[in-house]
């Protein structure tokens, strides 16, 4: 994978909340067409990095680059047509139906007073089909189960039809069946539809299994990146998480599988 084929990158960014620095002089390049997963312990700055990459927070220093231009100098709507983000905490508006919520992802493609167009309906239908929620279209989102609801949110970001897709811990709150279903869906989006994905995950074995590019972070710095099979070692896990572990091959996928040693 060559670094030239990358639309999105952070260059020497310093990220901070409330005067508390989360990361300093951090640089990262998101390879096009790959399924990138960011892992790391709590508060290592992975969500913050995702927010910076998606223009939601502005770096204190350094720049995020989209297609060779500083992302904060591009028009907000234009960025939103290239890059979609599913943040961790989103509120479901009271009484909204599935189709209406998914339709909100079309905002960056609409003009100020422009109405709903045919291509908007198509995008919504495609997004709902891809996430297998078309049969729920007229149901109120509040009545759905956690797994269904999460798929609705993902459909909303899909309806945005962006080549780049950033997801912050999309599997949290889901049971294992729905987690795997969602990871399979993301892989399909990446492989079949060619979307570039950047996903923050907590579950290491899922990260190793589905990622084609893995970024391991600790205390606001990138410790290692590359294919999971190339970078995952017992030493790396100890260095990133302070956890003793044994690495074996996943019996199904053959990817690295982390088994904690414990005491």
């Amino acid at each position: 994978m060559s670094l030239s084929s990358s639309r999105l990158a952070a260059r020497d960014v310093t990220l901070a909340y409330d005067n508390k620095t989360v990361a300093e002089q951090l640089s990262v390049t998101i390879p096009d067409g790959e399924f990138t997963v960011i892992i790391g312990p709590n508060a290592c700055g992975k969500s913050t990095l995702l927010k910076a990459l998606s223009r939601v927070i502005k770096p204190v220093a350094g720049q995020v680059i989209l297609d060779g231009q500083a992302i904060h100098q591009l028009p907000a709507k234009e960025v939103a047509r290239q890059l979609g983000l599913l943040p961790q905490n989103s509120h479901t508006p009271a009484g909204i139906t599935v189709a209406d919520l998914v339709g909100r992802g079309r905002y960056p493609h609409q003009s100020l007073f422009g109405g709903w167009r045919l291509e908007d309906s198509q995008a919504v239908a495609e997004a709902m089909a891809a996430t297998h929620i078309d049969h729920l279209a007229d149901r109120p989102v509040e009545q759905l189960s956690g797994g269904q609801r999460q798929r609705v949110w993902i459909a909303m970001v899909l309806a945005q039809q962006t080549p780049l897709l950033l997801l912050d811990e999309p599997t949290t709150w889901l049971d294992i069946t729905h987690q795997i279903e969602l990871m399979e869906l993301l892989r399909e989006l990446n492989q079949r539809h060619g979307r570039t994905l950047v996903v923050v995950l907590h579950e290491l074995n899922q990260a190793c299994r589905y990622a084609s590019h893995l970024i391991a972070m600790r205390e606001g710095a990138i410790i290692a990146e590359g294919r999971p099979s190339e970078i995952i070692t017992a030493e790396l896990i100890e260095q990133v998480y302070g956890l003793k572990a044994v690495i074996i091959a996943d019996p199904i996928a053959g990817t690295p599988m982390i088994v904690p040693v414990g005491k």
Partner: protein
Amino acid sequence: MKKRPLIIFCFLLLAVGSVMLSALCRGAIPLSLHDLWLLLTGNGPAGLRLVVVEWRLPRVLIAVFCGAALGISGAIFQSILRNPLGSPDVLGLNAGAFSGVLAVMLLWPSNLFAMTLASLVSAALTGAIIYLLAWRQGITPYRLILIGIGIRALLMSFNGWVMTSTSLSTAMSAGLWSAGSLNGVNWQSVNLVFPAVVIALLGVAMLAKRMRLMEMGDDLACALGIRTERTRLGLLFLATLLTAVPTAVIGPVSFVALVAPQIARRLANSPSGVLWNTALCGSLLLLVADYLAQHAFLPYQLPVGVITVSVGGIYLLSLLVREARRS
């Protein structure tokens, strides 16, 4: 707009229209619809025209415009704060506007334009103070509401103090005004309220879609290409305008802003198109409240604010009880 909100929109429009008509017909001199038609088309006796065109019509129009303005203002606050309690009267913007009006009443009595301006400035100032006190790297709705309630208490006691320390006649007229009343509105008030409300509603129409998206959270709205802080500030400004202008003209009428968005949402059962139904609900509430205030307790005429406070108070109580049970 979808089918159900559209049907409700038409229904509300019909309701507003019929209450307007009966408000125009009913009074010390009752009129038939035929008489009314003659008068409004420029025929009929001049004395009656004075009653209907110069007295009743502006009152009805003011109720419609101010009710709509208050309803939309409440809808904006509730949306921004993601809380059904976040209305301008709970936050103390009414009380703030009243402080400004009170000051003008002492200095230049009966200058409507100065009163409106003072109401606007002091409501905006109150809003800014609440916003700044609640700001801590962004706004948490709950903190904003609590600080608003505190500021409101402070302003109410200030207003009370000013009223007890002025001359009796000023205190009387200020007291009457503070109850909220449509007595004495005329075409001058309509000429002031109408353009302000129309301009503000155009602004709201431009920002409505963004407002709906921001209800899903700032991060998501930002990722969808919305400049969130700027949009929020614009919406807050419009909501303040839509509270301050009615307050200057008819006094601090409570609860329309709190209740109208709730009713509209419950009627439509979906968030799409709710804003325009909210405006109509606000108009309908204020029209009906004023109608009752004028005709229901004859020979007494109550200030409209008394009606809205008593109806709204019951509603607020039930809302609080339900919120408390849920959490």
